[in-house]
C-alpha cells in the first residue's frame, strides 16, 4: 500500500518548505539527480534508447504582451511519436512555460512549478515574486542536471510572465539545461529548430517592416507561423504547420489581463492569409 497522503504532522513547525522539498519529504518526488562526472557524456544509455523529445518553441514581445508558440511534434530519434503535443504550458494566471526537450521531465517540472507557486501563495498569503518564480524553475533544472549528463531528461524551457511590480511589463526568459536563466529584451527560441527561428526573429526585429515590439496581434501570429514553418523546412524534428492534417502550432499570449490561448480557427485564418 502506498503511504497515506492524509496524515497530519503533529510537530508542524509552522514554517513552510518550498513545495519540491515538501514532496521529497513525503517521498512523492524523486531526489535531485546526482551529477556523476566520471560517467561518459552521451554514453551507452543514449545509444541504446532514444527518449521522446519535443522540439522548437519561440517567444517574443509584441505590442499586446508576449507571444509564445510551439510546434506540435514529438520525436524519438527518427520516429515521429506524436503530432499534437502541447509544449506551451500555463503555469498560473500570468505565467507560461514552453518546453523543448524530454516531455516526461518537462511536464513533471511544469506540474511541480504550478503547485509551487500556488502553495507559496496559499501558505505565505502573498504572491511569489517574478524573480522567485524564475529562480524556482532554475532550481528544478539544476536538480535535473544529473539526468541530462546521463543522456536522458534534457529540458530547455522558455518562461514568459507578466510582472506588475514595480512597473507593469512583460518579462521573458530562456534557460540552458543546467538552469542558468537569461532574460531577453525581445525574443527567445529553443529546441532543434531554433537556429532558423532565431535567424528570422533577428532579421524581422532589425530590418523587418517594424520591430517585433511594435507588431499587432495578427502580424505577430503571422511571423510566429512563418518562423516555425521555416524551421520545419530543414529540421525533421519540427512539425511546423501540417497542411494536410490541418494541425497548427499552439500559440498563447501573456498580457496584463492574463493568458489567452488563440483559437485554432484564428490561427488558420492568419495562416491562409499571410503564410500559405
Amino acid at each position: 500500500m502506498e503511504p497515506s497522503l492524509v496524515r497530519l504532522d503533529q510537530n508542524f513547525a509552522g514554517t513552510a518548505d518550498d513545495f519540491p522539498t515538501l514532496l521529497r519529504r513525503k517521498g512523492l518526488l524523486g531526489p535531485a539527480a546526482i551529477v556523476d562526472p566520471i560517467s561518459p557524456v552521451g554514453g551507452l544509455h543514449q545509444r541504446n534508447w532514444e527518449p521522446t523529445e519535443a522540439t522548437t518553441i519561440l517567444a517574443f514581445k509584441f505590442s499586446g504582451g508576449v507571444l509564445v508558440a510551439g510546434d506540435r511534434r514529438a520525436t524519438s530519434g527518427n520516429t515521429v511519436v506524436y503530432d499534437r503535443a502541447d509544449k506551451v504550458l500555463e503555469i498560473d494566471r500570468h505565467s507560461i512555460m514552453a518546453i523543448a526537450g524530454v516531455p516526461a521531465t518537462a511536464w513533471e517540472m511544469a506540474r511541480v512549478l504550478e503547485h509551487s507557486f500556488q502553495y507559496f501563495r496559499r501558505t505565505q498569503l502573498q504572491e511569489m515574486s517574478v524573480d522567485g518564480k524564475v529562480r524556482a524553475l532554475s532550481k528544478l533544472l539544476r536538480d535535473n542536471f544529473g539526468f541530462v549528463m546521463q543522456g536522458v531528461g534534457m529540458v530547455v524551457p522558455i518562461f514568459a510572465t507578466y510582472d506588475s511590480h514595480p512597473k507593469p511589463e512583460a518579462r521573458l526568459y530562456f534557460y540552458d539545461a543546467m538552469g542558468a536563466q537569461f532574460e531577453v529584451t525581445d525574443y527567445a527560441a529553443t529546441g532543434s529548430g531554433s537556429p532558423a527561428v532565431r535567424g528570422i526573429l533577428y532579421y524581422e526585429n532589425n530590418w523587418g517592416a517594424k520591430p517585433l515590439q511594435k507588431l499587432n496581434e495578427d502580424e505577430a501570429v503571422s511571423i510566429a507561423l512563418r518562423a516555425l514553418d521555416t524551421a520545419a523546412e530543414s529540421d525533421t524534428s519540427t512539425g511546423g504547420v501540417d497542411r494536410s492534417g490541418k494541425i497548427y502550432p499552439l500559440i498563447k499570449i501573456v498580457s496584463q489581463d492574463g493568458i489567452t490561448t488563440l483559437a485554432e480557427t484564428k490561427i488558420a485564418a492568419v495562416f491562409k492569409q499571410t503564410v500559405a
Partner: protein
Amino acid sequence: MIEEPYRWVEAIANRREYIEAQLASGSPIAALGYRDGILFLTLGQTRQKIFEIYNRIAMGAIGHPGDIERLRMAAIELASTEGFTRSAADVSLRRLVHYSLSPVMKSAFEQVYGAPYLARMLFAEVGERPEEDLFLRVEYDGEIATSGATFAQARNDFAALSGTRQSRELMESFLQAEHAPDTGFEAALKSALDAWSVGQMALQTGDTKEMPVRTAVEKYRREQLANTGIEAGILERDPSRGIRYRALMDKELRALIHD
C-alpha cells in the same frame, strides 16, 4: 489522574470549559452559497481569518493564531500533495476533514497531558451547482457539523461560525429565514453582513437566545461598518477556471452596500 475514568471525564470537561472561554470572544464568520459561488465574510481588521486552502476549498477560523496556522498549513499541505500526485479533482473537503483534521484534533483534545487545538474552523467547497456546495464546521474536539440534510432538518446552503453556541445558532436561524440559496451576490452580501451583526450582537449581550429586531440589526450593521473593515473571499462557481478562490477588497464591497 487518567487511571481513574471519572477523573479523565472531569479533566475533559474542564478542558472543554477552558477552550470555550478562550474562543468566546471570536468574531463571527458567515459562509453563504449563492448562484455564482460561495461567499465568506467577517468584519474586523486585527488579523486575517479567511483563507484559501485549495482550488475549490476555503476556510474561516477563530481561535489562537498559532493553532489556526498549524491547522491551516496542514490542510494546505495535504490538499496540495494530493492534488499534485493525483489531480485537483481528487482533492475533496470531505476526505480532508473526516480522515485527517478531525481525528488529529480529537486525539489532541483527549490527550489531557498535551495541548489541544484552540481553534474552531469552517470549511466550504464549491460545487458545479449550488446543491453540490459543501460546508463543514470542525470543532476543537474534532466534532464535525455539516450543512447536509438530516432527519431533523433540510439541507442548508450556508454555515456560520462564532465564539459561542448561542451566537452561532442565532446566525443560523437568521440565515435560515433570510437567505435563499439561488440568490445573486448583492443579496448574499447583505445577508452575510446581517448574519454577522446578529452573531456579534449576541456575543456582546451574552446569554441571550432572542433574535434582535430587524431595525436593531440594521442600525448595528451600519455602526460597525463605519468603524471597521470587511474581510471577505469568494469561491467562484465558474468551471472554466481551475483556481476558484479570490479575496475581495473592502473597497469593492462597499460599492455594493447601499446604506
